[in-house]
């Protein structure tokens, strides 16, 4: 069922990276955590360090999760995935240098913190 049309059908890339004023879209998901109701979307400059995710973006997003108070990126075991591939990010290097592209989906899995939902 390819697209059907009585004329030429234009290809409109509604969310191509050039439309985001120098940012790229990045999606973040703390695996197994359901208080935050879905993975989250951010427009981020590709040059910011990966570490900004753990210092700014993740706390802003996930501080509501009961597990958050036990999440310590220096101590907690964290498995990072970028677009489905397990990686070891270099926090001091940029998102781009860590392989985060436009519309990349970053998952972090914490085997010891699996998504408490109650008090």
């Amino acid at each position, binding site marked *: 069922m390819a697209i059907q049309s009585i004329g030429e059908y234009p290809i409109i890339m509604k969310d191509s990276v050039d439309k985001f004023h120098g940012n790229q879209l990045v*999606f973040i998901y703390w695996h197994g955590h*359901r208080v935050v*109701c879905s993975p*989250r979307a*951010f427009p981020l400059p590709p040059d910011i360090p990966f570490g900004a995710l753990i210092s700014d973006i993740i706390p802003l997003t996930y501080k509501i999760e009961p597990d958050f108070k036990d999440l310590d990126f220096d101590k907690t075991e964290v498995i990072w995935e970028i677009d489905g591939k397990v990686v070891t990010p270099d926090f001091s290097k940029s998102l781009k240098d860590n392989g985060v592209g436009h519309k990349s989906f970053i998952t972090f899995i914490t085997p010891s913190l699996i998504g408490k*939902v*109650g*008090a």
Partner: protein
Amino acid sequence: MSVEPRKKRLNKKDAYKYMTRLGWDPTYQKEEDVFPFLEMEGLKIHDWEAWEDPFRMTMDSYWKLQAEKDKKLYSIIDAFAQNNAQKNISDARYVNALKLFLTGVTPLEYKVVQGFSHAARAFRGEGASIACQMQAIDELRHFQTQVHTMSHYNKYFDGFHDYSTMHDRVWYLSVPKSFGDDASTAGPFEYLTAISFSFEFVLTSLLFVPFMSGAAYNGDMATVTFGFSAQSDESRHMTLGLSAIKFMLEQDAGNVEIVQKWMDKWLWRGYRMLGLVAMMMDYMLPNSPTSWGEAVELYIEQNCMALYKDLEKYGIKLPTDLINTIVAEKGHLSHQVWNIFYNHTNAAAFHTWMPDEEKMNWLSSKYPDTFDKYYRPMFERYTALEKNGERFYSEVLPLVCQTCQIPLGFTDVEGGNPHVYTHETSEYNGEIFHTCSKGCKHIFEAQPEKYIQAWLPPHQIFQGNCGGATIPEVLKWYKIEHGVDNLDYVGSPDEAMWNKLKNK
């Protein structure tokens, strides 16, 4: 002077024929120029005359019938207003279901006027065109009666003031809006499959029955009345849906495969959109006549299966994968959607709230396998946070599905991971696209050229097309008044108004 004897009236059959068979064969234009959409979708029609119009209604009887229904409806609406019947509803929380209906469903009724008018023009057969024209006029009436009925609530409660702008702009309303746009930008045969068959025939009971019985259970007689007033139209629309499907399937064996794809696509599109109805049934109605889970059992597991079985003789197969997912999700769907809206009520045109103990117990009894285990602890914690003045609102935006445009908040129940969100990806033209489910991924990949154009609200905000980068700026552009139309029901002007109406 001789007086001509008055001619005998035509019998009904002839009258129908003369009043509806108004087409002609073009002679100085090519047929494919006059009807450019007929062959676009690959469907073959050999005999348009085989289209059965099950109602054989003519405009004179149509106007009479509809006028009668309108007269009854408007006298009840007047009585409702004069008796201040807004005081008789179960609770002002109920009114939020109407806000969702007015902003989400009512503009779709209007969209369908355009869709059926287009289908009527596109078809070659007069029987098909007449049926589509009638339905277009019906839908216009439904749109009007809904707006008129609900306008009474606009005098007392917030969030009703600009439903058409909201429909075009507000993030969760892009779910029904994109559904309507997807259907109306398809060819006329797919349109009929999408709206007449999948929506009106297969799924409409899941929308209208819960809304109207919900209205009755919560003392909203005005809404019950517009439901009744639309009901006889709806049964005509359902019959049109079934006769349209049978017509397409009977005309050519090659049509079966095409129609099957559309049926599968629109069953899934419709089901995803009805997630909004699921949360309405289980959470927004203070008195719930039935749960979403029970409705799925009745309308999907029984009625929908039987319907597909009826079509087996044409070679139509039950989309087992989709049905299995719908059935697997039935114990989770409404809770997950309510959590999505609880997270984002700061950007919604209606209120949410945490259910009280009685409602939680009702949910436990309706969802014995899921509610206490997965949702009650989360919701009790929300309640505790509220008591400390820390009501949770999300400060960040969701990733939404490229196809259905709902945040990716559905979990992998079928795969045995009810705490993990499902997520699918596709690639097209060098870019990644994210979908919420196999059903939505499949729809995307069948026609990526279409879905890459999706106006996804979070992305549009980031691109700077929605009034600004902050939540207050976006709310202003949405025409949502902060602190009035949005946020929790507790502490809202709606709650204050309700207490005043009830002299509490």
